[in-house]
């Protein structure tokens, strides 16, 4: 089966994914609110998904779609556990600022 060629170069999708990943990394490293840090992690996971799908389109190999599917499932599990931990920490410490949670640091 023949597919119409993509009018947009795959490189463009990869560049968008790279920018998105670096924005997520910046959020993880710079923000102090644990919830915003989690949202930045979701951004990074989505950037990896976009890369998987871009390569799947480039090679017309649907296995990349399955990788993206598994990433989405793992992200759902990670969000559930992470937010539960945030709730537990907030209940014990009254804060979600990652700079104030430093018992394990030293």
């Amino acid at each position, binding site marked *: 089966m023949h597919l119409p060629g993509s009018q947009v170069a795959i490189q463009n999708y990869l560049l968008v994914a790279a920018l*998105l990943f670096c924005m997520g990394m910046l959020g993880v490293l710079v923000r102090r609110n644990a919830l915003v840090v989690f949202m930045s992690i979701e951004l990074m996971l989505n950037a990896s998904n976009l890369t998987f799908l871009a390569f799947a389109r480039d090679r017309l190999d649907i296995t990349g779609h399955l990788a993206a599917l598994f990433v989405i499932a793992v992200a759902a599990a990670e969000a559930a556990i992470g937010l539960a931990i945030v709730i537990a920490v907030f209940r014990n410490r009254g804060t979600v600022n990652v700079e104030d949670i430093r018992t394990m640091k030293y």
Partner: protein
Amino acid sequence: MNLNGQEVVFYLLAGATLGSAALVIAARNPINSAMSLVATFFFLAGLYAQLLAHTIAVLQVLVYAGAIMVLFLFVIMLLSLTDLGEPVRRVTFSRVVGGAAAAGLLMVLVAGVSRWQATSVENLPPGSKAFGTLEAVGGLLYARWILPFEVVSLLLLVAMVGAVVVAKPRI
């Protein structure tokens, strides 16, 4: 610069995705971050559809923009964090290092992407179903990838039980 329709849609979606992603990490109020993240997921679903990944685009809206973001908003409102934003924007050493690390990674990635050659396969391998449809994805998922699929379902069960155990004050 001559742009055809698909390119115009791509640049609109890409710009909207990156703009709303920037709002996620720039907004002071976590609620604003969460709503910008929902917008980011919708625009990304558009990009996925442009890459012929229709099934993943639908799952993105259902699971990410739907389920995961409802979880985030529930937690934000449960903790009533609206006034716990970062009041002062201090430039600390760790923030400078973090920004430099992100910029460095971006440079490395851009250099890698610019050296990469696209394969641009245009013909599906013989015998395969239409690309990116639920039929094609499901056919592969429930045949060759059935074991990873079951492991992921087990992972989701463990995460569900674990979230209840961690968040409950006493069991």
